[in-house]
């Protein structure tokens, strides 16, 4: 048993991923502490979403290991991977709701497939989770009738319906108006408090990062180049991080 085994729910070591000739992640190391909200920031296309997909096994890495509660999950067979995923929830960038199912059925689907609950219990739990994200009376409507912000909230309700240990958020505030973005940020914090989950948020929205993060890590050129609390990030003299946080075109990061 490793010394820090209990503190770190996820430990990533030497993670590498290439798509064709393009290196996305290059021997990346990252620890995620149980119960924290870790925000990973970085430019668009720097590999943040790929990192989330690697953590969940949706994409296989070329090198390195991802330890989830002390077990390397990169070598998991499908069945084991599915068992592990039941302990994860994920909010996708475009919400990824199933458009052939009603809002309620979207949230209820994981329960229908994996729990032994009765129909009535499933509906009740799905409604509770929808209420948790501030939505009522939408059970029988379809995702196509919902606004972007509502879709995100439904996606969030679906992500937490199985009471996961870890919830991953892929650009949760992108494409939303500032007020709805703040609503989502508040929800992320509230869910973390109420459900005691570990959250990993990937974003390039600095305001959101400061708001929800216990710790902020910056991904740049395939590696984590900085990790610290929001206050440390505000005071940092790291030139790359400063340029990103202040949103300047001039600096060590060259706009492409």
């Amino acid at each position, binding site marked *: 048993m490793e010394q820090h085994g209990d503190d770190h729910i996820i430990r990533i070591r030497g993670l590498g991923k290439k798509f064709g000739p393009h290196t996305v992640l290059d021997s990346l190391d990252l620890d995620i502490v149980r119960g924290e909200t870790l925000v990973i920031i970085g430019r668009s296309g720097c590999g943040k979403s790929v990192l989330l*997909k690697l953590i*969940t096994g*949706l994409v296989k890495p070329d090198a390195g290991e991802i330890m989830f509660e002390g077990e390397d999950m990169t070598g998991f067979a*499908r069945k084991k991977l*599915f*068992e592990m*995923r*039941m302990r*994860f*929830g*994920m909010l*996708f*960038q*475009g919400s*990824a*709701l*199933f*458009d052939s199912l009603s809002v309620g059925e979207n949230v209820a*689907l*994981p329960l229908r*497939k*994996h729990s032994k609950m009765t129909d009535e219990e499933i509906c009740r739990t799905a409604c509770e989770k929808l209420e948790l994200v501030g939505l009522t009376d939408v059970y029988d409507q379809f995702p196509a009738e919902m606004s972007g912000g509502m879709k995100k909230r439904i996606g969030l309700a*679906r992500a937490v319906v*199985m009471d996961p240990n870890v919830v991953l958020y892929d650009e949760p505030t992108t494409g939303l108006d500032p007020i709805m973005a703040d609503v989502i940020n508040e929800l992320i914090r509230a869910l973390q408090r109420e459900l005691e989950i570990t959250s990993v948020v990937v974003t390039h929205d600095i305001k959101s990062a400061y708001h929800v993060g216990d710790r902020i890590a910056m991904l740049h050129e395939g590696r984590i180049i900085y990790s610290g609390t929001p206050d440390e990030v505000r005071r940092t003299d790291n030139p790359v991080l400063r340029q990103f946080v202040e949103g300047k075109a001039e600096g060590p990061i060259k706009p492409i």
Partner: protein
Amino acid sequence: MAPIAVLGRFFLEFVQDLGGMFILVGRLLQAIPRTFANTRNILQQMDRIGIGSIPLVLVTSLFVGAVTSVQAAYQFHGYVPLMYIGTVVGKSVILELGPVLTALVVGGRVSASIAAELGTMKVTEQIDAMEMIAIDPVEYLVLPRTVAATIMLPVLTVFSDLLAILGAMVVANISIHVSFNTFESGLKLLFRNQDLIGGLMKTFVFGFIIAIMGCYHGFETRGGAEGVGLATMKAVVSSCLLILISNYFLASLIFRIIFAPSS
């Protein structure tokens, strides 16, 4: 060097597609024991793929039967007694026209719709979302569609055979003045059960091809709207080509080996 490079790229893509398809079929076979757990989904797909295709099959079959009748009369004129119109219509419809044309029109309709649906799900991350809630997309999406298409295509073919013969009979009666009785006796003259069985055996394979091509190209979709369009086109082209190619091999297998004429 350019033509060689193009040929090489084409060959690489072909091998990649072939490998991908084998993997998909392998995963589908693994999911087969869970067929009965997906009955509701399968019935829904049977309705969409099978019942939904009836109007298309109805029009196609009636007119194919009608034209076969007209062409047979034209060929026979002055050489062969017109009672044999029933014989030639029956043989060609039951052996080839019914199974192959049904497969082609249903293939166009169904593989395109499957590829577009799954392709859109893929580019909007719905397939990833399904994986994330620990639902196997092959079991939830591919299995119901493949089982439904494999069952429904033979059913549609029986329907098509009957309608084509009906169309031929009506046209023979109205425009060629062959009575229903004469047509029927011609139809029965060389009819053998094995023709019908052999023709229907092929359609199980065609149904499988239609669904699996739609699913494979849907899952392989990259990019946005353009990717979905490309996947749909690939699904239709590949399912139609595979139907025609496999038809030759299946006909050879069934009518030259399984039901080999005794000499």
